[in-house]
């Protein structure tokens, strides 16, 4: 078994989530992620203390052009084989701020996204489903 495949196997059901909470979706994310048993059911452990200890980054909330470089920095600080989830309409595409002068219209302009979770805000089930799909994709 090749080393990278082994590493990917190691990630299955061991998602250590870095919470990049930037706006109201962050509250929804925190509320959903605080249900530890639900998160454990999809193999995720939220609230990594720092980027180096995470392998999934969940960007929840509105990313502004001014803050975008800091989000990129967090991404760069994560281990190289990490995954990114865009949580909520703002992170996906700008959401209700689609024509704003200050909001980044989709965080995928800056870093590659593995899972998009739609909603304004998404329901807790949507977060769990997104994490489950990510697990499935890593295992494939």
């Amino acid at each position: 078994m090749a080393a990278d495949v082994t590493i990917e196997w190691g990630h299955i059901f061991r998602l250590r989530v870095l919470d990049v909470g930037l706006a109201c979706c962050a509250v929804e994310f925190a509320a959903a992620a605080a249900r530890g048993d639900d998160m454990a059911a999809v193999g995720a452990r939220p609230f990594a203390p720092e980027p180096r200890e995470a392998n999934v980054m969940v960007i929840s909330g509105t990313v502004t052009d001014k803050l975008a470089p800091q989000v990129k920095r967090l991404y760069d600080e994560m281990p190289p084989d990490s995954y990114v989830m865009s949580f909520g309409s703002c992170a996906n595409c700008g959401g209700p701020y689609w024509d704003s002068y200050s909001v980044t219209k989709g965080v995928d302009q800056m870093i590659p996204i593995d899972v998009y979770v739609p909603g304004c805000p998404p329901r807790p089930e949507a977060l769990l489903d997104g994490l489950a799909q990510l697990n499935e994709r890593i295992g494939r």
Partner: protein
Amino acid sequence: MTLDDFAATRDVPSDDWYEAASELKGSGHDFFDWLSAYDDSDAGVAVVARIWSVRDRHGAMLRTRVAREGGLLPTLTTLWEGAAWHERETAEMFGIGFTGHPDPRPLLLPDGFDGHPLRKEFVLASRVAKEWPGAKEPGESVAGRKRPPGVPPAGTWGS
């Protein structure tokens, strides 16, 4: 206290801006609440400040208008230091200046941002490049959508 107490706005010429604020402070309005502005099209940029009297539980609004191009107002930071950030934000968002401000750098906009985004003529690039996403169904006509006064029509925007 009635609603009028909250709604009372005093219009002053821009030359009297500082004096009017000083008088308010002298009359016990000691708490600086906020300062902002709005684009009043041909009348210029209207700057509004709200000052609160803690003792009397009474608020007063001051309003003045300055020119759209090169509009200047004296800073209120010598009366209330808390006005500094409000004035910095108002300056970058509306393209006016506050003379005597101790630190007139932009506050919120990224470095190198071009333009003053809260002015009506500021072009929002997304509206040029993208279809309005507010239709209930994909492909639904958005022909009846209203354009606010002062906002340039879509055909005249950029290249």
